[in-house]
């Protein structure tokens, strides 16, 4: 069974703390994504990566960075957490651009609360 695993389901952090959200996929996918999901706003793309050590900004990259040192792992980093980063964070992966489908496989999500 294919899987995208997010290391933490729930986190509570304080303003100014550095936060790491980890994501691992076991499908050998080239592409990985980080979204945040807020009520009424749907899924907004923060960053994505189409290869190891490659990253591209999405629609809302401010306040975030990412790391992809290995193909199966894509980390989202909040250098200095702020209360407006309280949200549900979703990691996803997909096959290479030339694949027959563009389906994204999502993790279960990490709900972050910043106090």
């Amino acid at each position, binding site marked *: 069974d294919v899987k*995208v695993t997010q290391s933490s389901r729930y986190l509570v952090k304080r303003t100014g703390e550095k936060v790491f959200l980890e994501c691992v996929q076991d499908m050998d996918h080239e*592409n990985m*994504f980080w979204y945040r999901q807020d009520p*009424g*706003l*749907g*899924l907004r*793309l923060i960053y*994505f990566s*189409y290869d190891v050590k490659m990253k591209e900004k*999405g*629609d809302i990259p401010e306040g975030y960075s990412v790391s992809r040192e290995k193909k199966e792992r894509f980390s989202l980093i909040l250098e200095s957490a702020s209360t407006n980063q309280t949200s549900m964070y*979703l990691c*996803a992966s*997909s096959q290479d*651009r030339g694949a027959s*489908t*563009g*389906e*994204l*496989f*999502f*993790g*279960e*999500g990490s709900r972050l609360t910043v106090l």
Partner: protein
Amino acid sequence: GESVGLHLPTLSVQEGDNSIINCAYSNSASDYFIWYKQESGKGPQFIIDIRSNMDKRQGQRVTVLLNKTVKHLSLQIAATQPGDSAVYFCAENNQGGSYIPTFGRGTSLIVHP
């Protein structure tokens, strides 16, 4: 940028009824569309997809209709069950260009027993 939107944020139906969830898209270059279902506390999951060279595709109890003329997509769920209660997202993609999908804001489907 281009956007994908939904006509109704919430849809309430009775168990056994058919449900129709609508989605409008604005990028005429989009050629691939996916519907996702997100149950409470979980990540979105693929339901069904359709390419722009088709106008209808059927799965198990679900049908997706694509009207390229008016840039409209719909998901029909037959004999809706309580387990169908979830948020449904449409996503569009231009596979000839970016492989990054654009998601709609979601419709919450509530099924009453």
